[in-house]
């Protein structure tokens, strides 16, 4: 679909603005896994994390129900696969100090070597995993 890359760029710029705002004004990194991780420790001084998460849901809903030209397609994955995937993401982002947004957007944006290593690692691992599952085992929707 043409125009995809442009929307991607525009969306990326919004994400960059969000991360810049949060770092400049609050001194915090807009890493979603980290924000969630801190949020579920339920500390009063860290209640801003819930505001961010609620805001993110509102922003997503605003796009989906107001701005989107067509509804976002929903593909269904097996619940057990989602649970294993979610567990691995939680485990790995905690161990690696960040996720796609934390390392990929915030870390690369401030030229962090640790984040560069993390991004290379999870992109390569992701590519290998998708290759093995889609083209090795021929599972999932290989389009």
């Amino acid at each position: 679909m043409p125009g995809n890359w442009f929307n991607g760029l525009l969306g990326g710029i919004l994400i960059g603005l969000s991360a810049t705002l949060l770092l400049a004004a609050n001194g915090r990194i807009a890493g979603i896994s980290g924000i969630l991780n801190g949020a579920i420790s339920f500390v009063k001084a860290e209640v801003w994390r819930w505001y961010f998460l609620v805001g993110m849901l509102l922003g997503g809903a605003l796009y989906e129900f107001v701005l989107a030209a067509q509804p976002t397609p929903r593909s269904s994955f097996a619940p057990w696969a989602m649970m294993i995937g979610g567990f691995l993401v939680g485990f790995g982002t905690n161990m690696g100090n960040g996720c796609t947004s934390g390392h990929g957007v915030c870390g690369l944006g401030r030229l962090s070597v640790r984040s560069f290593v993390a991004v290379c690692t999870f992109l390569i691992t992701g590519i290998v995993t998708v290759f093995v599952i889609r083209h090795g085992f021929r599972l999932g929707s290989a389009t």
Partner: protein
Amino acid sequence: MMKQNLVAMIAGILFGLGLGLSQMVDRDRVLGFLDVAGAWDPTLLFVLGGAVSVKVKGPVFDRLQHIGFIEKLGADRVFLSTHQAMRHLTEEGSMPK
């Protein structure tokens, strides 16, 4: 405290809008980027590129600094990861162990 929450809410809305607009809420689009041997979808690269281009060392941050935004509304301290923040808060006692 109020300011911190308001900023976080606005940042969250921007982030959610960005995820929606860039279609990174669609799992197939993310998987499409990782599927280099299939119908490769480069969109995620543009998302990361767009995001990184305005980030900390980018033109937007410089501009904010230039107009004094950082001084007026700026963070009094900066944490570069959740682990770092939580460790610090535990040490200074504002968070129970």
